[in-house]
């Protein structure tokens, strides 16, 4: 039969490719990996969103939180690096956690990713809206809820379309945009610091060593809340660890791009946060948290050059929106392929080859979510979203860290290196993130800690009791970040149970696996998953 020989044409390699490099799946040059890692983290947008929120919790000690938040992320990166060796280039908490801890936990991990991606969308749209108006000097419109939301919705529509159609910037354009972003932020910081030292800037403060010392923060709750915001600024950095870097020996070169992107990010966050708060003090950042870089850049660089910073934020927000929609659709596709959610979510558009249905659905749900949130809480979308986001990130990064140690548990004591990098680091990273999660639950259960002090949701919840010497009470409702962040995660539990009852096959039949060796690539999670397309 003629058809027999093409049953599996996949993987047919064009043999005589020079150096065997051309067809290495997903292999990227060091520069490309670096660009992807840093662009996914989106420094300018992250700073625009987080600067004022971190100072709101810890005042001038914000730079300390900026670097401290990186430590758990670094530990979790070890988990990503090693899990990636079992299930290469996958990067989904969903498949990894399913392997290590079984389908129910894995499902909730995947849900965590989707919800976190959803929660970040309003903050991206909000920044896109406000900064677009600032770019054109329309500061009145930048403060109008209606018009900002209007532009924000258009932003989601355009970005969803870009991801659906599959428009990609060329590598050179990406390198240019990212370099421009970093150069602009650096110049902004240098100019701000120079002017502070020259004197004459209102409310300016000279930088002090105490700013980078986390032990100067005396409230555990405030530290935890600030950390929850600051882990967000490193969110996406793990991409640098999981994209396959083209190297002489991929297994032995633990991502030079990851190391470099780390240095770049920590440096830029420290410089900008120090410069920003020394210019007008921490109070200014908190008071202008919704458009902090726009206001500040105007004062620092003047009318003629402030648009550079605004443009950097917008370009960064656009990269960040894409690195939210694309992975969200791919996670949904992954879950659909393995039978964990309806098959429709895994369909591929035949023309554009994108996960079409999942992409469009994510766009629509994001718009609904953004508009509803704007109606419920018009004055603090950014703060509530970013803190709620922190809960989601802490949850799914945390569970990934723990999954790494669980998955490789037979190998942890084989060598000191194993013990440190697949035992201690991922587990510690996971536990630190869970601890932050829990402390922040308590912190935001008190509406006095909301970004608009006293702002409370779900006021009908009322309890007050003592347990093991702890006074546990909710009497005035809960802070919005808690309701959004934890509420959306919890919503996954009944959905998971429903799907498990209705469709136990094949996904919920999985048993947790354990790794026998580090370099042994795991067999497919669902062998022969059916082909799906529109």
């Amino acid at each position, binding site marked *: 039969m003629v058809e027999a020989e093409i049953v599996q044409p996949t993987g047919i390699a064009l043999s005589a490719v020079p150096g065997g490099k051309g067809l290495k799946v*997903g292999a990227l040059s060091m520069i490309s990996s670096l660009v992807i890692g840093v662009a996914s983290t989106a420094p300018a947008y992250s700073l625009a969103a987080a600067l004022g929120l971190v100072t709101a919790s810890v005042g001038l000690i914000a730079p300390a939180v900026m670097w401290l938040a990186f430590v758990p992320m670094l530990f979790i990166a070890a988990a990503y690096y090693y899990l990636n060796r079992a299930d290469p280039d996958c990067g989904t908490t969903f*498949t990894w956690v399913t392997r290590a801890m079984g389908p129910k936990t894995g499902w909730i991990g995947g849900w965590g990713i989707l919800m976190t991606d959803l929660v970040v969308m309003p903050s991206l749209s909000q920044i896109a809206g406000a900064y677009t108006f600032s770019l054109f000097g329309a500061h009145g419109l930048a403060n109008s809820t209606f018009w900002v939301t209007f532009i924000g919705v258009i932003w989601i529509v355009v970005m969803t379309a870009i991801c659906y159609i599959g428009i990609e910037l060329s590598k050179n354009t990406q390198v240019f945009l990212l370099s421009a972003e970093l150069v602009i932020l650096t110049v902004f910081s240098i100019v701000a610091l120079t002017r502070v030292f020259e004197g004459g800037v209102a409310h300016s403060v000279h930088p002090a060593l105490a700013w980078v010392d986390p032990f100067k923060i005396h409230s555990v709750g405030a530290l935890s809340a600030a950390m929850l915001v600051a882990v967000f600024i490193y969110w996406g950095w793990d991409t640098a660890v999981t994209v396959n870097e083209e190297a002489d020996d991929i297994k032995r070169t633990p991502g030079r791009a990851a190391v470099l992107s780390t240095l770049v990010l920590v440096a830029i966050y420290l410089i900008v946060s120090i410069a920003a708060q020394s210019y007008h003090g921490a109070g200014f950042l908190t008071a202008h948290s919704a458009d902090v870089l726009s206001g500040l850049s105007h004062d620092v660089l003047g009318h003629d050059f402030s648009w550079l910073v605004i443009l950097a934020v917008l370009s960064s927000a656009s990269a960040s929106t894409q690195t939210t929609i694309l992975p969200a659709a791919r996670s949904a596709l*992954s879950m659909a*392929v393995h039978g964990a959610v309806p098959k429709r979510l895994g369909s591929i558009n035949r023309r554009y080859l994108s996960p079409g249905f999942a992409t469009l659905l994510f766009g629509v749900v994001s718009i609904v979510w953004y508009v509803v949130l704007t109606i419920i809480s018009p004055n603090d979308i950014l703060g509530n979203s970013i803190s709620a986001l922190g809960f989601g990130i802490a949850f799914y990064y945390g569970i990934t860290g723990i999954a790494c140690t669980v998955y490789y548990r037979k190998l942890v004591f084989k060598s000191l290196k194993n013990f440190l990098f697949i035992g201690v680091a991922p587990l510690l990273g996971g536990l630190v993130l869970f601890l932050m999660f829990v402390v922040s639950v308590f912190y935001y259960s008190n509406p006095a800690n909301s970004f608009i002090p006293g702002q409370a949701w779900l006021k009908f919840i009322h309890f007050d009791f003592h347990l093991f010497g702890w006074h546990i009470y909710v009497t005035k409702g809960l802070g919005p970040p808690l309701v959004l962040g934890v509420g959306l995660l919890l919503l996954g539990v009944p959905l998971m149970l429903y799907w498990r009852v209705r469709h136990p096959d094949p996904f919920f039949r999985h048993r947790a696996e354990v790794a026998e060796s580090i370099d042994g690539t795991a067999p497919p999670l669902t062998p022969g998953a059916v*082909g799906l397309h529109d």
Partner: protein
Amino acid sequence: MAGDVVLGYDDSAGSRAALPVAVRVAKAFGAPLAVVFGYEPNPLGGESTDYRLQLERLGSDMVSKALQEARRLAPEVTVEPLVVPLRPADSLLEAARERQALVIVVGGTGERPIVGAVLGSVPHKLLYLSPVPVLVVPAEEED
């Protein structure tokens, strides 16, 4: 001795129109025909393994379909289906280079030039980058 005829095939109207032309060219020159489907997920999206696998399956369905059609049109032509993990234009260039192709055959996208310029039309890229002749076959008018 001429090399392969390389056909880009994605089951679009254009590529369906290009298929019989490629078969005729291959038959006339006594050349083997390589049917190529290329794909590459945007690396910015991460998390690509399951997505890649789905694209691979979709691609092998498409080239299998093209293979059957080619065999029906000209059973004497040797046809090889290839699913290549590179962007569409790159996959054709790579296949052409590796097979020392006689010609690359692709379907016109049928889109207005400005749309093609924005979305990056494959024939357009090939015209600039291909080391071998490129034959662009217009899509038939659809109802």
